C-alpha cells in the first residue's frame, strides 16, 4: 500500500462540527433511577444463589513476615466448613517479572500471600462455610506461624540504604544503578535547560511537600458471588469497573480458559479507580471449585481499608523560577511515590501532569516508584495528578504572593494552549485551560468580598483522559424502540448519556432506548471503566453503532423506494429522499421500517468495536474560600466553585455531579483523610470513624461552570469529565488557608494539629 493511502486522523476528523443537538445536552431522568431509589437495584452483595456458601478471608496481622507454616486442618474439620484455600490452590504458571511487566504475578501475590506477608491485611487463607458466622469462626481455627521481619511504611525511609528490602529483583531496567532495591521504577522527562531558566528568574522558590495515602472510599465494599466447577466453567457476579479485566485476570490466576468464565457486572456502589482491581474474585472462585458450591464473598469495611487500593503517598521537591512580570522561566520537580508492596505507584503521571498546565521553555521532572509494606495501591481519580498539582500550584501561589501578582493573571500568562509543547513532550491540540481561567476570572465568586478570617485560593489541574478497547451493540425492536448493550459499568449515570447519544443519531426519543450493561458473554472485550473513558469511548462506539443501524435503515428505505441508498438521508428519525432528484417519497419513520423488518431482510442492528484513540485532555480551575479557626486549627470550606472543560456535556446534570464529587473528595484529601500507620506497621484507622471522609455538614454547596472546548477526537466533542475535578482542590484549599491564616501547609492532610503548629511558629516569628 502506498504511503499516501494512509489517512491519519490529524485532529478534527471525528468532530461533526455542524451538529445541531436535539437530545444531547438535555437533562432527562436517568433510565436506572427508579431501581436505585426503590432499593431494587442489585449491587455486588445483593445476589444470592441456591446452595450458596459464605466465605471469609484470614489476613496478616503483621506488616512484613515470613510464613513459616499454615495449618488449616482444624478449620477443615469443623462442621459447616466446605473448603479452605491457600496460595497452593492458585495457578503455578503465572511468571514473575520485574516492574509492571509482572503485573499478573503481582496481582496473584496480592490476592493470596506466597512465602511472605507484605502488609497488614495481606490475605493468607480463606474459608467457605454454610453460614457467615461459621466461616468467621473457622478463620480462628487456622494456625499460621510467622517469622516477623523488619518493615517500612514511609516512602523516604524505604529509599534509605538500610531500609528492609520488600522483594529482591522487583526493579525494572529504568532504575539507575545504585538505588535501593525498593525503588522499582524510574521516570525522567522534560525539555530545555532548567538551570539557565532559573538564572533568568527574579524569584526562585524551592520547597518540599508530602501527601498521605487516601482511600477511594466507595461506600460499597468489594463483593462477589462465584460458581466454578472442576470442569473449568464458571460464572461470576461482582462489583467492578471492568468485568472483562476481571475475567482475564481470574482465568490466568486459576488456569481457566478465559471464555469459560462468564462475568456479570453488578450495579456498582462507587469505584473511583479502586474497582479497576481484582482482590476477592479469584479467592471466591477457588473456594467454589473446591467446594463445588456457589460462594459469596463480601469484604468488611476494615478489609477494604487494610487490603484494597489506597492511593500512593508522595514526597515531592519542587523548584520554580518566575520573573517579576509573572513569566515562569523554569520548573523542576522530583516525585517519590510509594505504592505498597508492589510496583505501580503512578509516579510517571505525577511527573507528567505536574507542569502540564503551563507553557514552559525549561522543565524537568523525575519520578520514583518505591515499594513499602503497605497495601498495593490502586488508581484513584486521575491517579498521580492531584499530589503533583498540590505541590506545584502551592509554589506558584507563593510566587504570586511574593511578587504581588494576581494568581489567575499569572496562570493565564503561562497557560498551555493549542500548539504549546507540553511539559511531557508532545504538542497540545485544541485544549481548554485558558477558557477555564477566563471563566473563573469572570465568575462572581472570584470578586466576592471575603469575611474576616477567610481566604481565597485558586488552583488549576490537568488529566489526560483515555480511550481503550470498546465494543457496543444496538438492536432495534419491531415497535421502533432500541436496546443498546455497552460493556462499561454505569458508575454515575452513563446509561443516560449513552441513551442520549443513541437518541441523537437514531432520531427517536430518549425514552425509547434501553441501555444494558452486557456481561462478558455478550460482547467483545471492553476495557475497564476508568481514565474518564466511558462517555468518550463507549459514547463514541454507541454513536457509531447507531450510525451502523441507520445505514441499514436507509438501505431498507432505498429498497422500498427502488432508489440508491446514497439517495436516502436520515433526518429526525425518518428516511427521506436526499433531494429532488432522488424521487418524491414521504418520509419513512424508523418504526415503519422496523415494523416489518423480518420480511424486508431480517432484524436490524448496529455494531461497533475499536480502540478509539482520540481522548482529549482536560483542564480545570477551582476557586475556594476557606475559614481557619485560629483557636482549634480547624478549617472550613465556605464557598467552592469548579470550572472545568468537559469538551461537550452530554447530560449536564451528571457532568456537574462529577465536578462536585471530585471536588468533595479533594476536600477530604486536603483536610481530613489519611492512612495512619503505627510503629508496628499496622493501619491504625481502618474505619469510617477514624478515616473521616467529608459528611454533608462539612461542605457547602459546590458551584459548577461547564466549559465546552470540543475534543476533536469525538463526534460530539466529548472529553472525559470524571477525573480532573480531583486535581485542583488540594492546592486550592492550601492556597486559601495560606491567604486566610498566613500559614503555608506543605503536608497533607491539613489537620487541625498541623495548622496549630504552623500558627504557633508564626507567633514565634512575630
Amino acid at each position, binding site marked *: 500500500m502506498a504511503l499516501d493511502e*494512509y489517512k491519519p486522523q490529524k485532529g478534527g476528523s471525528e468532530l461533526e462540527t455542524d451538529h445541531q443537538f436535539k437530545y444531547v445536552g438535555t437533562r432527562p431522568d436517568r433510565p436506572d433511577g427508579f431501581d436505585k431509589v426503590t432499593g431494587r437495584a442489585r449491587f455486588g452483595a445483593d445476589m444470592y444463589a441456591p446452595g450458596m456458601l459464605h466465605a471469609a478471608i484470614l489476613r496478616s496481622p503483621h506488616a512484613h513476615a515470613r510464613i513459616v507454616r499454615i495449618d488449616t486442618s482444624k478449620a477443615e474439620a469443623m462442621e459447616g466448613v466446605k473448603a479452605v484455600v491457600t496460595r497452593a490452590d492458585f495457578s503455578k504458571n503465572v511468571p514473575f517479572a520485574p*516492574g509492571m511487566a509482572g503485573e499478573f504475578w503481582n496481582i496473584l501475590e496480592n490476592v493470596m500471600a506466597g512465602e511472605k506477608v507484605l502488609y497488614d491485611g495481606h490475605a493468607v487463607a480463606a474459608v467457605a462455610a454454610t453460614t457467615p458466622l461459621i466461616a468467621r469462626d473457622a478463620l480462628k481455627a487456622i494456625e499460621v506461624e510467622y517469622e516477623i521481619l523488619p518493615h517500612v511504611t514511609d516512602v523516604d525511609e524505604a529509599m534509605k540504604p538500610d531500609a528492609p528490602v520488600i522483594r529482591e529483583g522487583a526493579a525494572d531496567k529504568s532504575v539507575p544503578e545504585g538505588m535501593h532495591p525498593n525503588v522499582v521504577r524510574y521516570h525522567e522527562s522534560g525539555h530545555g535547560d532548567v538551570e539557565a531558566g532559573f538564572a533568568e528568574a527574579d524569584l526562585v522558590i524551592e520547597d518540599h511537600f508530602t501527601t498521605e495515602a487516601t482511600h477511594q472510599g466507595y461506600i460499597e465494599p468489594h463483593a462477589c458471588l462465584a460458581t466454578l466447577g472442576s470442569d473449568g466453567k464458571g460464572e461470576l457476579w461482582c462489583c467492578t469497573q471492568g468485568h472483562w479485566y476481571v475475567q482475564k485476570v481470574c482465568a490466568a490466576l486459576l488456569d481457566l480458559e478465559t471464555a469459560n468464565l462468564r462475568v456479570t457486572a453488578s450495579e456498582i456502589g462507587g469505584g473511583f479507580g479502586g474497582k479497576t482491581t481484582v482482590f476477592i474474585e479469584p479467592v471466591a472462585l477457588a473456594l467454589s471449585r473446591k467446594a463445588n458450591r456457589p460462594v459469596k464473598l463480601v469484604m468488611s469495611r476494615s478489609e477494604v481499608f487494610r487490603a484494597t487500593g489506597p492511593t500512593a503517598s508522595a514526597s515531592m521537591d519542587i523548584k520554580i523560577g518566575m520573573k517579576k512580570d509573572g513569566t515562569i522561566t523554569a520548573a523542576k520537580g522530583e516525585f517519590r511515590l510509594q505504592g505498597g508492596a508492589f510496583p505501580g505507584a503512578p509516579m510517571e503521571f505525577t511527573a507528567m501532569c505536574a507542569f502540564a498546565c503551563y507553557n514552559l521553555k525549561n522543565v524537568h521532572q523525575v519520578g520514583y516508584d518505591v515499594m513499602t509494606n503497605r497495601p498495593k495501591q490502586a488508581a484513584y481519580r486521575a491517579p498521580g495528578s492531584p499530589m503533583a498539582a498540590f505541590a506545584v500550584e502551592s509554589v506558584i501561589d507563593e510566587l504570586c504572593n511574593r511578587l504581588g501578582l494576581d494568581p489567575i493573571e499569572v496562570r493565564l500568562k503561562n497557560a498551555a494552549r493549542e500548539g504549546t509543547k507540553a511539559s511531557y*513532550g*508532545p504538542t497540545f491540540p485544541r485544549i481548554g485551560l485558558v477558557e477555564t481561567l477566563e471563566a473563573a476570572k469572570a465568575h462572581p465568586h472570584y470578586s466576592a468580598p471575603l469575611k474576616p478570617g477567610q481566604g481565597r485560593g485558586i488552583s488549576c489541574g490537568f488529566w489526560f483522559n483515555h480511550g481503550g478497547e470498546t465494543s457496543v451493540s444496538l438492536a432495534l425492536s419491531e415497535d421502533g424502540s432500541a436496546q443498546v448493550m455497552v460493556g462499561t459499568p454505569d458508575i454515575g449515570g452513563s446509561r443516560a448519556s449513552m441513551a442520549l447519544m443513541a437518541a441523537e443519531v437514531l432520531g427517536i426519543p430518549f425514552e425509547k432506548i434501553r441501555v444494558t450493561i452486557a456481561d462478558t458473554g455478550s460482547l467483545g472485550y471492553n476495557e475497564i471503566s476508568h481514565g474518564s473513558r466511558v462517555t468518550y469511548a463507549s459514547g463514541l462506539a454507541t454513536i457509531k453503532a447507531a450510525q451502523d443501524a441507520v445505514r441499514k435503515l436507509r438501505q431498507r428505505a432505498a429498497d422500498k423506494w427502488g432508489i440508491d441508498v446514497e439517495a436516502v438521508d436520515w433526518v429526525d428519525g425518518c428516511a427521506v429522499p436526499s433531494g429532488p432528484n432522488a424521487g418524491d417519497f414521504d418520509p419513512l419513520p424508523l418504526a415503519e421500517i422496523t415494523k416489518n423488518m423480518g420480511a424486508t431482510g431480517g432484524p436490524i442492528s448496529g455494531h461497533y468495536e475499536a480502540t478509539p484513540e482520540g481522548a482529549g485532555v482536560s483542564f480545570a480551575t477551582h476557586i475556594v474560600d476557606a475559614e481557619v479557626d485560629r483557636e482549634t486549627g480547624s478549617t472550613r470550606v465556605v464557598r467552592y466553585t469548579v470550572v472545568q472543560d468537559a469538551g461537550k456535556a452530554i447530560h449536564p446534570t451528571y457532568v456537574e455531579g462529577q465536578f462536585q464529587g471530585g471536588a468533595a473528595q479533594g476536600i477530604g484529601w486536603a483536610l481530613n483523610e489519611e492512612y495512619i500507620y503505627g510503629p508496628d506497621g499496622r493501619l491504625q484507622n481502618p474505619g469510617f470513624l477514624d478515616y473521616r471522609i467529608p459528611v454533608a455538614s462539612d461542605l457547602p454547596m459546590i458551584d459548577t461552570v461547564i466549559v465546552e472546548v470540543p475534543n476533536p477526537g469525538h463526534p460530539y466533542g466529548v472529553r472525559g469529565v470524571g477525573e480532573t475535578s480531583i486535581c485542583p482542590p488540594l492546592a486550592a484549599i492550601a492556597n486559601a488557608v495560606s491567604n486566610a491564616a498566613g500559614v503555608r501547609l506543605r503536608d497533607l492532610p491539613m489537620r487541625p494539629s498541623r495548622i496549630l503548629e504552623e500558627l504557633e511558629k508564626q507567633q514565634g516569628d512575630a
Partner: protein
Amino acid sequence: MPEVHLWSGLRALAGGREVVEVEGRTVGELLDALVAAYPALKEPIEAGVSVAVDGRVIASALNEPVRPDSEIYLMQRLRGG
C-alpha cells in the same frame, strides 16, 4: 522517516539519543522498528507504552497510522481511575 522522541528515562537504552528516526507507517510498525534498532528498548516497550501522535495519546491501538512528518512521543502507558 518519522522521528520518535523518547522520554529521558529511555535514552540510556537508545545510545543516549533523545530522538531516533525509524521507518513505520503505524504505531505498531514504529515500535517494532525501535526494538529492532535498539533491543534494549524491548523491555520497557513490552511493559507498556503509550504513543503520542500529533498530540493525541495512543494508549494501545498499534494500527493507528502515522505520517512521515507526524510528531511522535513515547510515553509511559496511561492508566486511569
